[in-house]
């Protein structure tokens, strides 16, 4: 079972690493689309964190099997939350991309520093 | 008329007056000015009707509304406020008469705005005089600052706006930064800011903090123009002369010294302060202001600026008197407010009259002017004598009381200051009087056209106004019993000691 414990930590580390990669891209990249890509990695990392905590050792997806007793199920609540969060994420992304498209039209560039220079 | 109603009317009448002025201003000038005069007279009648009650020892109160728990907008008439309100409302009539002459004679623009703001300033003054607690006082204090700003900036050109900025900047900054802090501190310590005879802070603070609080009050009340927060007063000389009169005699600076006196008498309690050495510095500061302002005045070449510095010195008289903390001195402080008001308004009226008639502003231009404008210069001379404190003028009465108080306290610095400043006053006023009456008119300095050279007296209304104030200055020497009686009430506890 040691491997399972390792997976637990690993899951959490990957969450942290992904979060940092995404966050880094958002801050450091000047390209607006790249920023949004970073943002979506950033959000995905959080999804991973939530889903990691719903796991129950020896459990299955939370779809009740009638007649089966003593079956462990994973926690449905984080899943529900993340379903919502995923849709929220794509909505934000779409809006962000729409703005980027307009920026390209008005400024002719999607690089942050060039936009700043233009004004 | 119940006293409560009278108090409310004293606030409402000038306010309604302002509204009526705004309406009639569009219709006709004469109508507008009639409204001003009627309002002023009505107000004076209302305020005077309260005097007998106060003399009988009554203290009518009105609470308008409770803003926050423990914090009311309320009014309570007591002798100091009564005196101030009576003074301001009475002088408003005279000042209005004078204003009409001045504004017309000078063909000023925006006269309606001028009269509206004037009425608002008087409203604020009434509220300030009758305020029952620090909160109400502060409310009207700021209203007074704001309503006089358009008056100071009346001319509207770049230089005037700049000076008006100094005026507003100093007054608003000091009040928000220091006075408000002091007030909130008082509320915090005492749980209220009500004006109670004998003070509300006794035993609630350690002596060092009392000294600090006093400093916050003194410097926070920028209107009292104690050094170093006096800069606004010379700056405000850009205003039309009736406004200067309002600032120096009727309302603004009087509001300053009134506030400080009221705080000393009703918040700290004079005898409590006297028992604390930490409050002694105030006399020295006031003395310093008196002497240095007088010295600065000595070097002025512009008549109005000279008068401004003279005011600074005279205000510190009041503060010094209040800070001596002895009964006679407290009475002297109150009396000096009146005496100085009469004297200074006369001087300003005269200066304004000279400006309107001859367009002269410098002292050096005044040679021989007494022959052309005998009434004006006679009044000027009376005012000047009152400033020096020569009997039979009002100035003598107050100086008498202040000196008495200083002797009572054995305060030698104060005594010396009074003597020295009397000499200095004489040194800057008497030469002007001498020049005006006894020297020949100097045509070389007056480079203006001959039209102006051939001037006589100022418009009749202005001469009328300044004659009245000059008469009051002398009259006060003989008939000051009521005022003394009134103000004795603010020091009953000390009176026996």
């Amino acid at each position, binding site marked *: 079972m040691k491997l*399972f*414990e390792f*997976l637990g*930590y*690993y*899951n959490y580390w*990957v*969450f*942290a690493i992904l*979060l940092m*990669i995404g*966050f880094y891209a958002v*801050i450091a*990249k*000047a*390209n607006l*689309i*790249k920023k949004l*890509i970073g943002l979506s*990695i950033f959000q*995905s990392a959080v999804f*991973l964190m939530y*889903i*990691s*905590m*719903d*796991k*129950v*050792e020896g*459990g299955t*997806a*939370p*779809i*009740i099997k*009638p007649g089966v007793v003593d079956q462990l*199920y*994973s*926690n*449905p*609540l*984080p*899943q*529900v*939350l993340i*379903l*919502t969060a*995923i*849709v929220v994420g*794509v*909505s934000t*992304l*779409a*809006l962000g*991309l*729409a703005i*980027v*498209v*307009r920026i*390209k039209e008005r400024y002719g560039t999607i*690089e942050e520093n060039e936009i700043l220079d233009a004004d | 008329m119940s006293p409560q109603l009278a108090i409310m009317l004293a606030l409402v009448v000038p306010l309604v007056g302002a509204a009526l002025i705004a309406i009639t201003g569009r219709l006709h000038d004469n109508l507008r000015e009639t409204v001003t005069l009627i309002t002023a007279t009505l107000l004076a009648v209302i305020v005077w009707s309260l005097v007998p009650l106060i003399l009988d020892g009554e203290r009518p109160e009105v609470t308008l509304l409770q803003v926050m728990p423990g914090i009311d907008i309320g009014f309570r008439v007591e002798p100091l406020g009564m005196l101030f309100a009576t003074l301001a409302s009475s002088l408003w009539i005279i000042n209005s008469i004078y204003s009409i002459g001045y504004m017309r004679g000078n063909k000023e623009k925006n006269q309606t705005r001028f009269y509206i703001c004037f009425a608002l300033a008087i409203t604020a003054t009434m509220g300030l005089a009758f305020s029952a607690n620090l909160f109400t006082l502060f409310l009207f204090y700021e209203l007074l600052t704001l309503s006089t700003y358009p008056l100071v900036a009346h001319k509207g050109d770049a230089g005037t706006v700049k000076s008006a900025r100094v005026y507003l900047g100093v007054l608003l900054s000091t009040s928000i930064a220091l006075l408000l802090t002091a007030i909130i501190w008082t509320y915090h310590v005492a749980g209220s800011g009500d004006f109670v005879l004998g003070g509300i802070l006794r035993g609630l603070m350690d002596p060092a903090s009392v000294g600090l609080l006093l400093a916050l009050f003194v410097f926070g009340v920028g209107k009292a123009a104690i050094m170093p927060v006096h800069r606004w007063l010379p700056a405000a000389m850009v205003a039309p002369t009736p406004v200067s009169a309002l600032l120096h005699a009727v309302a603004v600076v009087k509001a300053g010294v009134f506030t400080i006196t009221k705080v000393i008498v009703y918040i700290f309690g004079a005898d409590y302060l006297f028992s604390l050495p930490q409050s002694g510095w105030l006399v020295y500061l006031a003395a310093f202001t008196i002497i240095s302002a007088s010295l600065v005045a000595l070097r002025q070449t512009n008549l109005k600026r000279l008068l401004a510095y003279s005011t600074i010195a005279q205000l510190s008289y009041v503060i010094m008197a209040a800070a001596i903390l002895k009964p006679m001195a407290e009475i002297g402080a109150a009396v000096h407010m009146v005496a100085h008001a009469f004297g200074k308004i006369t001087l300003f009226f005269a200066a304004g009259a000279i400006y309107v008639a001859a367009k002269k502003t410098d002292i050096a231009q005044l040679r021989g002017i007494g022959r052309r404008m005998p009434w004006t210069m006679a009044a000027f001379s009376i005012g000047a004598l009152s400033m020096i404190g020569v009997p039979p003028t009002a100035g003598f009465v107050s100086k008498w009381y202040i000196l008495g108080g200083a002797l009572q306290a054995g305060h030698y610095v104060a005594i010396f200051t009074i003597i020295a400043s009397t000499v200095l006053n004489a040194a800057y006023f008497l030469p002007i009087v001498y020049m005006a009456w006894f020297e020949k008119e100097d045509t070389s300095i007056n480079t203006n056209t001959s039209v102006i050279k051939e001037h006589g007296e100022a418009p009749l209304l202005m001469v009328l106004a300044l004659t009245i104030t000059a008469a009051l200055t002398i009259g006060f020497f003989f008939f000051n019993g009521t005022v003394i009686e009134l103000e004795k009430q603010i020091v009953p506890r000390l009176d026996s000691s």
Partner: protein
Amino acid sequence: MTIVFAIFLLTMLVITAVAIVQSSNLFVSVMLTSIFSLLMSTNFFVLDAADVALTEAAVGAGITTVIFLSALALTATQEKPNRSGRGIALIVVGLTASLIIYATFDKPRLGDPDAPVHQHVAPYYLDNTMEQMGFPNVVTAVLSSYRGYDTLGEVFVVFAACIGVLFILDARTGTGPKYVTRKMTGLRHHLIPQVVGRILVPFIVLFGLYVQFHGEYGPGGGFQAGAIIATAFILYSLLEGEQAALRAVPRSAQLGLVICGALMFGMVGVLCMIMGGEFLDYSVLMENPVTARQIGIIVIEAGVGMAVCGAMLSIFHAFAARSAEDTDEAV
């Protein structure tokens, strides 16, 4: 075995993420993002979150990628090199990282059935869903009933995004709506995708409908179904061109779908209020609370599906129509 697979997946996720950020070709980045989503989806599946996996696959790998690509077509495909701002980024990221690592130590371990998450609220759902709802998928039960209000909010987030994109992309110095779509041939000249795609489209729609109406019993529900059906239509418009796609589902119909979906959800809630219950308390709709809840859930799930599908289509077409104009102008 699963655990090894999970560890492998997680490692791949990190590698992909690094590659995404490193690549200066935006097209490559976007394609890698799609792969990233698929990996993530698989990982969710390993962690017993079937519903989320399905959603991530449909939304993350599918719709997101398409929208990204349409935006790329309108902007740029190459990132310009820029090195400024790295220092600050590293500091901020470092601080955040240390904060998270600090929290690691006291965390409950993975899969611990005694962890607080599995104690308080969650067991209630697992124990009562069958009895109160009459169907086995607890995720659907929580989504549409226990926390139906969240889902309502989510539908309106989608709605907001939809009107936002329409609003922002419609803003060409105002001479009325620009619903003009020029010739766009799609992939008509390419035979194989054409044939394969045409066969696929109806099946995708069918699958979407299955996911929609089977949500109570297996993984799935309105979100997934909406996203999947939207994918089918997007595929159709890629194959047949914008015009044909818009003939099939006009813009007004897309927007109408969103509005009807959102309103349907909301009106069910209001109906519950009128019938004397609380907002979204479906049990008052009929005599038998269990049946009533099932009916309510079916209706609101349909609303969710319509709203998501319509919104995704609207958003896609808002981008796609613009690229059609732009290419025309360029020519």
